[in-house]
């Protein structure tokens, strides 16, 4: 009976439905113009030869040639490896530091705004600014890092011109920049934990460390997961900070996948190959995003 009612739409429901579609249309068209069309164009390009420096070649269809080229491209492999390393270092790094910051910000400070502002500022700062600031920190002659080393009576280091140190410096900048976002997500999670949970544990004899292990961490699991996913998705696309600090140097030692794609298309003008690389990156992002969506479709509060 109730099913029959649900399936047969009354004229009012039909007109409501039409109105609904009409209201959605502008947003959908805009999205189609700025997201769907470029993605379609990107995929189309990736199957064509399209090199702006060689206009006489035209843009012939080449099938999977661009993708095959990527498989044998050492610089592509290195860029992927660097990107993976950035993810492996900066995602857990940002979550650990962010958790620390969130726990700190959740303390009952008498004046809350300086703490909250301190948390928000790195997040509000444009990525390139963050990159530039850290480039100055690690600059050889005037940078604060070397000034501190000199102060300790140590030799200054070539932070941005030796591969290992440059990777370290960039990771530090990324963690600084992104941990505040993680901290905000986790702070929101912390504030949903009732105070009585800790008080009951206190009366029951749990130490602060036990309270953290037994209450804070398990209760924060959904928030930590969300933070991990968001951080991972943005880490796949790491571009601005290494671009501003080293521009991928020295050599290609700090170049990420996004930077290589940018160089291929904007510097080398190879749109076809760059598109194929971008599609590969898109696939990786999409897979991780779908994992995240599958997780959130389950009730994150229940484990």
């Amino acid at each position: 009976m109730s099913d029959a009612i649900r399936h047969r739409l009354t004229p009012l429901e039909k007109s409501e439905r039409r109105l609904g579609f009409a209201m959605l249309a502008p947003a959908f068209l805009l999205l189609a113009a700025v997201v769907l069309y470029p993605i379609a164009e990107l995929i189309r390009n990736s199957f064509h030869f399209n090199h702006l420096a060689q206009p006489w070649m035209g843009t012939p269809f080449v099938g999977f040639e661009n993708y095959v080229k990527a498989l044998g491209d050492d610089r592509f492999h290195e860029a992927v490896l660097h990107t993976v390393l950035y993810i492996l270092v900066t995602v857990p790094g940002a979550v650990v530091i962010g958790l620390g910051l969130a726990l700190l910000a959740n303390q009952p400070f008498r004046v809350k705004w300086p703490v909250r502002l301190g948390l928000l500022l790195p997040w509000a700062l444009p990525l390139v600014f963050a990159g530039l600031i850290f480039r100055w920190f690690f600059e050889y002659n005037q940078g604060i890092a070397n000034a501190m080393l000199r102060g300790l009576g140590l030799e200054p280091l070539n932070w941005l011109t030796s591969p290992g140190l440059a990777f370290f410096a960039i990771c530090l900048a990324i963690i600084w920049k992104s941990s505040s976002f993680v901290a905000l997500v986790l702070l929101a999670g912390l504030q949903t934990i009732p105070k009585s949970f800790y008080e009951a544990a206190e009366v029951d004899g749990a130490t602060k460390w036990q309270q953290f292990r037994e209450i804070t961490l398990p209760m924060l699991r959904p928030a930590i997961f969300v933070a991990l996913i968001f951080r991972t998705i943005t880490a796949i696309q790491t571009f601005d900070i290494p671009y501003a600090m080293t521009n991928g140097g020295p050599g290609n030692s700090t170049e990420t996948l996004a930077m290589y794609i940018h160089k291929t298309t904007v510097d080398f003008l190879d749109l076809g190959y760059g598109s194929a690389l971008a599609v590969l990156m898109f696939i990786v992002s999409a897979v991780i995003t779908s994992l995240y969506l599958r997780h959130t479709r389950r009730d994150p509060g229940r484990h």
Partner: protein
Amino acid sequence: MAGIEIAKVVKAYGSVPVIHGIDLSVRDGEFVVLVGPSGCGKSTLLRMIAGLESVTGGTIRIGDRVVNDLPPRDRDIAMVFQDYALYPHRTVAENVGFGLRMRGADAMTIEKKVKEAAEILQITHLLDRKPGQLSGGQRQRVAMGRAIVRDPKVFLFDEPLSNLDAQLRAEMRVEIKKLHQRFGTTIIYVTHDQVEAMTLADRIAILKAGHVEQFATPDEVYRRPRSTFVARFIGSPSMNIVPARIAPDATTITLDGDAAVPAPASFARARGRDVLLGLRAEHLGLAGPDGVPARTVIVEPLGSDTLALMQIGRVEMTGRFPPAAPLRAGGDVTLRLDLEQAHLFDPETGLAIV
């Protein structure tokens, strides 16, 4: 097991005092209820006993130890919280055994004790569930299980029944009383519900604005309230308290300018004074033609008896009548006021005149 000695305890947040020197002496095994309107400091006092709030002044003693600076875990107490404080990511068994595990008990002991507690509270069949799958009453039982499993010297209850509906509340009240009879452990119980206070307590401490207004047995606070505050707070319906004047020869009492009623001999203690006359609903009755004339304003039949708001001259009083009493709103009746049972209060201080 232990008694609790609270001496001159003061609590202030910054420069704002919320508890102004409370003295309470709780005997070993006694069930004491702290009751009062919101903001009277009853929960703060309980949390100070638990160690969740610092003590600004005075001393709190549990057994023979001053516990002022002892952390909660060293006070040998267990507390049941208003929201039950059950961990949603842990099963009922894990929640009940949490305190034992935190104190390093071995798995065998924990399992045995959790089982015992579960049997007492009839939650054995729930042990593998998560708190999210339980009803309010079941959660309440689990929270109590978590407290009794540790076999502490003192149980503290912070408004444990306020999230339950009326029927469950009555049920759990009985359960709590049974538990106390079974274990005989000292209990301090905070509530704003005077029915809970009356039914559960060995002694009730009625708090008002950070001090103890009266600390006595339920019978005592009901029959000999120390002030109008206690008189109004304890008992349902509230005690009728109306301005009155006792004649200089103490033979009559005049209710707010009008009806003069013969006064009992005991009113001589306030001869010639303006007073507040306190009379409970059950001490009003229907009388013959020689009674006090009154008009029925509102009739509230409760089944077992009938409450009626009566207008006597310029004052209003609620009376409790037999269910068959011939009352109707707007009707004129004559009343018998059982003034032998009445209370006299000073209109200035609100304190009982004895």
